């Protein structure tokens, strides 16, 4: 060994070369294995999604077969006669989310405007963190608070006022008809508004901050007021991002379960009044799933879940496409 090495100068011995090849081979194998492992994990994300879709379709199949398209438009939800229709929960889901967005979108945008344009620098971080804390509170906390604090408050102070104020106004009188239950569509919508407010605020703040300062400074230089800068420079520039954020929040509102279940009243009917109890898809599933007897009942509830998933999937996909478009424009 020593001789060989000595004779061939600095050249590496045969045995050493074999060792080296072995080590390299091992590293290469390990490398390939790790690469495939990460790839498999990435594919798992897709497997989860397709698993969700397949299992929901499989579970919903008996109900869809029995009721067909009528499932989407029937109002009756009767476990005794085993006749199920989804229109009441779908209606409740959409109306509560609509109320939530009507309130949360303007308020959220104004808070974002405050945070990016008006707020003194030292206050920006604390207020931003506080708003994000609001986003971190689990939805069940909103639910229990809504049930014990917010609903009684609405029942005693706000709803009687609404009924009295709008009782004689056409159109609005049907909207605010009936006794003040406290719980109901309006309460659920208001709780949802508080819940999605931080999502809208933090996304719009982020996109507002992405506006190149030069653009804003140019507008200020022309003598624009803060509002004009926000309205004619910031908002047009960030429109896709804001729409994306709003859709993201809408996706949350549509699928939100616990906050709504506590205060919606779980009544399977469509009422013209937003003070009346109603139900949403998620609240129906949460309330009835463990108590559902019979395959058709369970299957109908899973079919509701499938409808919810399809609706939120479309909304969220649209939101992501919008946000991707904004990012592409910003070149990040």
């Amino acid at each position, binding site marked *: 060994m020593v001789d060989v090495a000595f004779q061939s100068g600095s050249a590496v011995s045969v045995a050493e070369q074999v060792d080296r090849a072995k080590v390299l081979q091992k590293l290469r194998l390990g490398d390939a294995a*790790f690469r495939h492992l990460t790839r498999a*994990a990435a594919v798992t994300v897709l497997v989860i999604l397709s698993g969700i879709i397949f299992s929901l379709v499989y579970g919903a199949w008996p109900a869809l077969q029995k009721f067909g398209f009528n499932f989407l438009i029937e109002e009756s939800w009767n476990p005794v006669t085993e006749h199920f229709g989804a229109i009441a929960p779908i209606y409740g889901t959409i109306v509560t989310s609509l109320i939530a967005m009507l309130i949360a979108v303007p308020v959220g945008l104004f808070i974002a405007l405050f945070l990016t344009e008006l707020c003194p620098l030292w206050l920006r971080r604390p207020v931003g*963190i506080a708003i994000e804390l609001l986003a*971190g509170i689990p939805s069940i906390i909103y639910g229990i608070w809504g049930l014990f604090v917010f609903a009684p408050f609405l029942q005693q102070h706000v709803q009687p006022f609404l009924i009295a104020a709008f009782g004689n106004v056409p159109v609005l009188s049907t909207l605010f008809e009936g006794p003040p239950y406290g719980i109901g569509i309006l309460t659920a919508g208001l709780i949802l508004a508080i819940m999605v407010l931080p999502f809208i605020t933090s996304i719009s703040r982020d996109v507002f901050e992405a506006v190149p300062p030069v653009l804003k400074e140019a507008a200020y230089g022309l003598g624009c007021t803060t509002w004009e800068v926000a309205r004619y420079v910031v908002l047009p520039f960030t429109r896709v991002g804001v729409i994306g954020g709003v859709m993201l929040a809408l996706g949350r509102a549509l699928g939100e379960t616990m906050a709504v279940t506590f205060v919606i009243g779980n009544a399977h009917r469509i009422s013209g009044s937003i003070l009346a109890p109603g139900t949403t898809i998620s609240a129906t599933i949460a309330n009835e799933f*463990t108590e559902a007897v019979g395959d058709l009942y369970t299957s109908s509830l899973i079919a509701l879940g499938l409808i919810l998933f399809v609706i939120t999937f479309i909304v969220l996909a649209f939101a992501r496409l919008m946000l991707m478009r904004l990012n592409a424009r910003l070149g990040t």
Partner: protein
Amino acid sequence: MAIMISGASSPLYASRRRKNGITMTLAYLATGFGLTWLALILGVLFWEGFSGLSLRVFTEMTPPPGAAGGLLNPIIGSLVMTFIAVLIGTPLGVLAGTYLAEYGRHDKLSTVVRFINDILLSAPSIVVGLFVYEIMVAQMGHFSGWAGSVALAVIVVPVVVRTTEDMLTLVPDTLREAAASIGLPRSLMIAKVAYRAARAGMITGVLLAIARISGETAPLLFTALNNQFWTNDMNAPVSSLPVVIFQFALSPYKDWQELAWTGALIITLAVLALSITARFLGGQSKKS
């Protein structure tokens, strides 16, 4: 200067000023509105929660209606299920995030995975519950703690994938090139260089995922169900804090409702502590 003064008195300028004043006031009011809700919710929660808080809450089982008791079994149940969910979800999420950031940053698979992952990130959690019910509870024929853990793991994965990818993308390429130039294979480069540089951020992601699942109720309702008693058997229904809060809050019994408030306070404090720690860690990783 003279032009400005004459402009200031014009009706157009006055109306623009007025409009600006109104909208800016609205912005202040909106912020006050948002913060008021935060204060109201936390205020009531602390008030109601602390009044029921005692040592008993942590040492006794959930009581039958009308008796005194604590929240020991749901607290333990929540901790165990969260732990297992993180144990399943974190490696999966980290590996998938690694693929997106290190191997396939620009390939087609990554684009699709990224998109789907973002959708899973905000998909309704009750649907995840239905999914796990179908694949586990319906197949095994009974509710179980394992099913609850898997449901929570499904929620953990997208959060960890997202943060892992984001944090790895922040690691400068020069570090990777330096590692490659001394002959480090790619897998070792990722493990020894990229992970180390992104560690704080990745831990933040896991903390955020824990914060997210510790308050999740909907996916547990029909996977882990609930259990009035202590159990070591993950094959049996396991009680969890959020589900107990749900059940107790909707009950007509005063002491159950009180326990629900206390449970809500415990969850909120845990979540707030987690997100503040995560923020602290995240802030540090940005600085370094």
